[in-house]
C-alpha cells in the first residue's frame, strides 16, 4: 500500500512540473514583462524608465532562465524562472503586482470559500442522491419521463439565471436575506444561506440525471436479480443493495473535487460579494494582476492533482477488487 502511494505521488510530480512550465511559458515567454508593464501602466504614452521601474519593483528585471553575468548558483537562482516559478513549489507565492503578499491573502480568503463550497457539496449530494433514487424507483413511469425532462430543462438554464433570479426573488422582493456581503463567525450564516441554496438548486438538474443513470446501470446487474429472487421488496432492493453499490462511483467521483473546494466558485462569490478565493481570482483577472492569476493557476492544479491522488486511493479502499499495481 505504502509503495503504491509513493508511486502515485512520484507520478504526480512531473505533472506539477509540467503545469509550472506551461504557466511560465504563458506568462513570461509568450509576452515579455515589458508588454505586461505596458498593459498595466497604460497603453502607449509610457516611458521606458517607468517600465523599468515597474519591472524592478516586481523583480521582473531579471533574465528569464539563465543569468550569465552572475556567479555560482546565482546564475540559476537570480532569474525570473527561479524566483517566480520554482518558488511556487514551496508555496511561496511572492507579492501581487499591487504589492500585497499573495500567500497571506490566500490563507485569509480560503475560509469564506469553504463556508460556501462545503455546504453546497454536502447538501447537494444528499438531495441529489435522494431525488435520483426516487426517480429510479419510479423508472419507466410518467413520473420518470417528466423528471428527466425537468432535469434537462434545469440543465439548460444558465447558472447566471439562478443567481440573478435568486437574488432578485429572495433578496429584493421577499427581503429574507441580504443580497450580498459577508461577516465573520456565526453572523455569516445569513449571508451564506442564499448562495448555498442557489448552488444546490443550480446543480440539481445535471446531478439527478447523472446519478439516475448510475442507479439504472446498477439495477440491471445480477446481484439485484438475486436480491429480488430472494423475495426482497423493491424498496429494500433499491435503498439497501443498489444504493450501497452505486455509492462507490458517486463518492469516488466526489473525492476528486474535494481539495478544489478551497478555490471556491468564481461566479457565485463575485455575485454575492463573498471575500473568498473565487472573487479574489476574478478581481485579479479583471485588474490584470498576472502574479495572482499565476499563483491561482498553480494552486488550482496542485489541488486537482491531490484530488486525483485521493481518487486513486479511495478506489483501493472502497473496492477490494482494485489491485495495487
Amino acid at each position, binding site marked *: 500500500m505504502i509503495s503504491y502511494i509513493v508511486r502515485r505521488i512520484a507520478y504526480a510530480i512531473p505533472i506539477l512540473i*509540467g503545469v509550472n512550465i*506551461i504557466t511560465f511559458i504563458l506568462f513570461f515567454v509568450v509576452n515579455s514583462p515589458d508588454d*505586461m508593464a505596458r498593459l498595466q501602466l497604460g497603453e502607449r504614452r509610457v516611458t521606458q524608465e517607468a517600465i523599468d521601474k515597474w519591472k524592478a519593483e516586481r523583480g521582473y528585471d531579471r533574465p528569464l532562465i539563465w543569468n550569465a553575468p552572475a556567479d555560482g548558483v546565482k546564475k540559476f537562482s537570480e532569474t525570473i524562472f527561479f524566483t517566480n516559478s520554482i518558488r511556487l513549489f514551496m508555496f511561496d507565492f511572492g507579492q501581487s503586482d499591487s504589492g500585497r503578499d499573495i500567500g497571506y491573502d490566500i490563507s485569509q480568503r480560503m475560509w469564506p470559500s469553504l463556508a460556501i463550497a462545503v455546504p453546497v457539496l454536502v447538501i447537494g449530494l444528499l438531495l441529489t442522491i435522494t431525488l435520483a433514487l426516487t426517480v429510479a424507483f419510479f423508472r419507466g413511469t410518467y413520473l420518470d419521463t417528466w423528471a428527466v425532462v425537468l432535469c434537462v430543462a434545469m440543465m439548460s438554464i444558465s*447558472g*447566471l439565471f439562478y443567481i440573478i433570479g435568486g437574488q*432578485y426573488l429572495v433578496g429584493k422582493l421577499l427581503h429574507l436575506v441580504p443580497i450580498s456581503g459577508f461577516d465573520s463567525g456565526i453572523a455569516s450564516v445569513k449571508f451564506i444561506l442564499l448562495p448555498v441554496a442557489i448552488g444546490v438548486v443550480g446543480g440539481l438538474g445535471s446531478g439527478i440525471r447523472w446519478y439516475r443513470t448510475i442507479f439504472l446501470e446498477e439495477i440491471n446487474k445480477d446481484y439485484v436479480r438475486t436480491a429480488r429472487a430472494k423475495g426482497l421488496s423493491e424498496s429494500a432492493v433499491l435503498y439497501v443493495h443498489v444504493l450501497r453499490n452505486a455509492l462507490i462511483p458517486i463518492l469516488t467521483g466526489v473525492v476528486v473535487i474535494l481539495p478544489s473546494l478551497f478555490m471556491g466558485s468564481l461566479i457565485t462569490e463575485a455575485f454575492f460579494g463573498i471575500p473568498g478565493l473565487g472573487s479574489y481570482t476574478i478581481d485579479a483577472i479583471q485588474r490584470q494582476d498576472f502574479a495572482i492569476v499565476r499563483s491561482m*493557476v498553480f494552486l*488550482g*492544479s496542485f489541488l*486537482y492533482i491531490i484530488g486525483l491522488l485521493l481518487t486513486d486511493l479511495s478506489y483501493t479502499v472502497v473496492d477490494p477488487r482494485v489491485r495495487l499495481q
Partner: protein
Amino acid sequence: MRFTLFATDALFFSLILVAVAYVFYASRREHLRAPWRRVARNSLAMAAATVLATFLVIAILDSIHFFPRLAAVDGDEGEIQYASEVISLFDLMVGPVRRQVEKTYSAPFAIYAFSKETIELEDGQTVRDYPRLVYGGAHLADIHERNSDIAKRIVIGVSGALVVWLGLASIVFFWISHKASITFRVGFVRALSGGAPGPARTLMVTTAIIAVVIGLCAVLAPYYHIFGTDKVGTDVLYQALKSIRTGLIIGTLTTLVMLPFAVLLGISAGYFRGWIDDVIQYLYTTLSSIPGVLLIASAALLLDVYMTKHADEFTSLVARADLRLLALCVILGITSWTSLCRLLRGETMKLREVDFVEAARAFGVRHTTIILRHMVPNIMHIVMISIVLDFSGLVLAEAVLSYINIGVDPSMESWGNMINSARLELAREPIVWWSLLAALVFMFILVLAANLFADAVRDAFDPRLRVIS
C-alpha cells in the same frame, strides 16, 4: 455591395460544408443511416432539430458580411462608393430594426422613454416628463390606440404566418402524398391524426409555432421595441438575434479546433501504446489539471497584451472582435480536447484487441491503413456524441466567460455581454429586466433544443445504452 469574409465566417462555412459532406456520406451507408433514422423517429428530437435549424439559418444569414454600396452622389457617378461599416445579410433583412436606435432604455412595447427628460414645449416653456420615443410607437397618432394597435398587428401577424405556413405545408404534403401514391386528403388526415410514420405531427406543430413567432416579429418589430431597448438605445430583440451567431460559432468552431488533437492523439495513444501512450497521457493529464477557467483567463489576458502590442494590425473594430472570437474558440478548444482524447484512447485500446484488427495485423496491413480503415470508423460514434453533448455546455460557458470579461469582445453582440451589461442595472428602480430576460430566454431555447437533440443522438449511437434500456 462588396462581400468580405471574416476568419470565423470562413471556418463556419467550411464546417457547414463538412456537415453536408457527412450527410452525403452517411446517407449511403446503412450502419450510419440506421441510428440517424432512430433519431428521426424521436419526435422530441425532431422538434429540437427544427428549432436548431431555425437558429442555424439566422446564424448563416448573419455570417454573410459585406460593405453596402452607397447611393451615388450627383456628379460622381463614375466610381462606386462603399460604406465603411460592414453589415451582414441578416442586418439587411431586418432593415429598420437595426437603425431604430433610441436615446437610452425603454421598456418592451413602450412609447415613452424610461427616464424623465427636460422637454421644451411648443410655447417655449420647459417641463420634466417622459419624452416620446423616436421610433417605438411613433406611427400612433393617439397614444391610447396603442393596445388596440398591438392587438390588430398580432392578429395580422398570426393569421398571415398561418396562411404562409399552410401554403408551404400543402406543397410539402402534396409532394409527399404524390411520392407515396396516396391522395392529398388521405395523407393530410393521416398526418394530423398521428397515423403517419415518424413525427409528422410534431414537425407540423413546431414549424407552425416558429412561423407564428417570425410573423409576429415581422409585424411588430418595425413599430415597437418588442424586448425594449438597452442603455445606448439599441433594440434588444435585434441584439439577441445577432447573438445567435456568436453562440453557434463558439459551440461549433471550438469542436472543430479540438477534434484533430483529440482524434489524432487519442488514437495514437491507444493504438501504439508504449512511450507514445505515456507522452500523450502526460500531456493531457497536465493540461486537464489546470482549472479550465483559469487557463482561459490566462490565455485571454495574454491575448489582451498581444492586442495592445499589435493594435495597428487590425483594420477595424469588427475585425478585431472577430479575431478575438476565433481566439476564444481556440482557447476553449485547447482546454476541452482532453476528455474526448481520454475516451478515444480507452476505446482504441479495446478495439486493437478485437479479432478483425488482429487479423489485419497478421495479414501485414500497415498501421496507417488499420487506423484509417478499422479504428476511425469504429470510434466515430463517440466523436459524434461528444460533439453534440459539448455544444450546449460551450454556449453556456460563453455567457459566464463574458461575464468575467474574458469572453468575446465587448463590442460584439453576445448573450454573455447582454447579461453582463444588464446586471449593473438590476439595482435600478424600477428595474430594467428586459435585456436580461431576452438573453436568458434565447439562451435557454438554444441550449434546451441542443440538449434534447444531443440526448436523442447519444441514445441512437451508443450501443451500450441500447442494452440497458
